[in-house]
């Protein structure tokens, strides 16, 4: 049994205390009336280039990413590096489409993607579809952030029997819930700065320290089995691993900024310029993610998977324990505390933003649309605060009582679902030509087919597509969004013949500075 690493634990707790205070104090930062939803849920849309960089970075590059990507490299090798081309392709998408979304949302005071879709296409059911997709895709993501937290807490030797082992997680959760409720988006924005400084420090420390200990990168990669080092070259009549790699990267890139937490981060910026500027600056995070993917290979090279002191951790957390094990193996205890706090705080920031984003969606696009049409500002923001609590509680209950693997399945499905909002949201900022019911049916076809492919592929995101005897194994999300788009276009052409005019609240000038 692993002993409690007291030095690491104390540093970890001190850093957690610090960000807890920061989270509460943040309510007074750039003070606004937190009884208004756009103040609580978007921090008044006042973040400049610098804070937006930290906020979106802290939002997208989550603790789960920092644990899961190296874990995938550790277990499966080169395929994990798809995260790199993925993050290369997200920024042109951010640069082109999302400043337009920012301008139109600012002009019409929309706070969610579903608000925009409702305004643009004048159909509450389509808006509901976008809102529900966002919420459902986000919930398992929040749960997985808690897994990241669980892994580092376990890594410090804090383990209990049965549910007693979950007490630290519950404490972290209460902290998260309390500062999100009090301060809204200002809390994760201020904490993101601390989190990212810790993560950068940790990433560079590990990338410098481990290769030195092991005698250079050449020695590190020499210890990686050849089968894991590169992708398998595709055989005849199939795009093989290359197709899987490219479709995973492209599909994930298209999906990323449609997640509610991404859109919340984008809309809290103070202008479309801030977003464009960040599209050029955010690759700094991608570079760090690439470095961290390499950490999976460091874990292979140091052989932590075979060390007896880590056996119980790997047994409990699987490959997700690779990164914590490597940190424990490499660093002195005090720095393990810093590194684990980086991961732990890295879980709280996106979890807070995700719960706020889901709360905004529920409050605006479900509650206000279908239950209470004329809430006061105060009622609206109060509702969002409660929903943010419920959403996080749901994630906590899920993680404690349901096997983690289910959260992973649901998160993978979430990616396949959220991408189905590409036509209405991402393409919707360019064109009103799509018919709302065509968009709705396209969305439905995409969701159903994507879910079916996921199940048919034995609960995996890659479907072995075969067309005319040629194999195209690849990411179901990408295949089904193409189908969705085809259905949307054909049906729009048809429906538009019968519909004369539609209610579009927006005009072309709303999408520009």
């Amino acid at each position, binding site marked *: 049994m692993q002993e409690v690493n007291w030095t690491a634990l104390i540093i970890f707790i001190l850093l957690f205390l610090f960000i807890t205070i920061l989270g509460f104090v943040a309510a007074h930062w750039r003070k606004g009336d937190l009884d208004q939803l756009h103040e609580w849920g978007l921090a008044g849309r006042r973040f400049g280039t610098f804070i937006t960089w930290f906020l979106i970075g802290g939002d997208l590059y989550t603790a789960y990413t920092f644990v899961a990507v190296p874990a995938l490299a550790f277990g499966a090798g*080169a395929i994990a590096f798809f995260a*790199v081309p993925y993050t*290369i392709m997200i920024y*042109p998408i951010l*640069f*082109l489409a999302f400043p337009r979304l920012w301008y139109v949302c600012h002009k019409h005071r929309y706070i969610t993607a579903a608000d925009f879709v409702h305004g643009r296409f004048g159909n509450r059911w389509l808006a509901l579809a976008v809102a529900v997709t966002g919420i459902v895709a986000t919930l398992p993501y929040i749960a997985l952030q808690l897994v990241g937290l669980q892994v580092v807490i376990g890594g410090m030797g804090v383990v209990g029997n049965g549910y007693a082992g979950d007490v630290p997680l519950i404490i972290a959760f209460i902290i998260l819930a309390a500062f999100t409720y009090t301060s809204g988006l200002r809390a994760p924005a201020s904490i993101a700065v601390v989190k990212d400084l810790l993560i950068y420090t940790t990433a560079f420390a590990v990338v410098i320290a481990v290769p030195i200990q092991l005698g250079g990168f050449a020695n*590190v990669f020499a210890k990686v089995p050849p089968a894991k080092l590169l992708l398998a070259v595709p055989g005849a009549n199939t795009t093989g691993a*290359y197709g899987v790699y490219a479709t995973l990267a492209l599909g994930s890139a298209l999906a990323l900024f449609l997640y509610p937490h991404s859109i919340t981060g984008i809309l809290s910026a103070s202008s479309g310029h801030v977003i464009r500027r960040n599209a050029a600056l955010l690759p700094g995070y991608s570079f760090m993610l*690439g470095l961290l993917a390499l950490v999976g290979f460091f874990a292979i090279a140091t052989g932590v998977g075979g060390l007896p002191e880590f056996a119980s951790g790997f047994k409990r957390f699987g490959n997700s324990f690779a990164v914590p094990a490597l940190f424990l193996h490499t660093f002195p205890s005090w720095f393990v505390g810093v590194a684990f706090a980086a991961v732990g705080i890295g879980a709280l920031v996106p979890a807070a933003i995700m719960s706020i984003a889901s709360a905004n969606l529920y409050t605006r696009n479900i509650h206000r649309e279908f239950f209470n049409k004329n809430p006061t500002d105060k009622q609206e923001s109060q509702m969002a605060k409660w929903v943010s609590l419920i959403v996080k509680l749901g994630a906590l209950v899920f993680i404690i009582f349901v096997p983690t693997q289910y959260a992973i399945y649901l998160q993978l499905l979430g990616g396949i679902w959220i991408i189905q909002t590409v036509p209405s949201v991402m393409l919707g900022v360019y064109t009103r030509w799509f018919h709302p019911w065509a968009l709705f049916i396209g969305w439905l076809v995409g969701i159903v087919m994507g879910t079916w492919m996921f199940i048919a592929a034995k609960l995996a995101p890659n479907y072995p597509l075969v067309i005319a005897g040629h194999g195209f194994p690849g990411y179901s999300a990408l295949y089904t969004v193409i189908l969705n788009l085809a259905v949307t276009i054909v049906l729009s052409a048809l429906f538009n013949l019968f519909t004369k005019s539609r209610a579009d609240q927006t005009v072309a000038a709303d999408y*520009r500075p």
Partner: protein
Amino acid sequence: MDQQGARQSGWSWWYLLFVIQFIASLWVGTYNRADPTWIGIPFFYWYQMLWIILGGVLTAIVYFATDA
């Protein structure tokens, strides 16, 4: 007048620069190899890391070119 038209439509030819990083990323066959290594890192890994930087530079170029 032409510039005015481009501003109105929101399109700029500079955006075509983005195509480069999409092709570089998606054409997996061009970089799935170990050699040449750089400071011991196989080509597959350092090449893609390099493209993160190049992608950032391309985005910056488009930003400054279209910001006027």
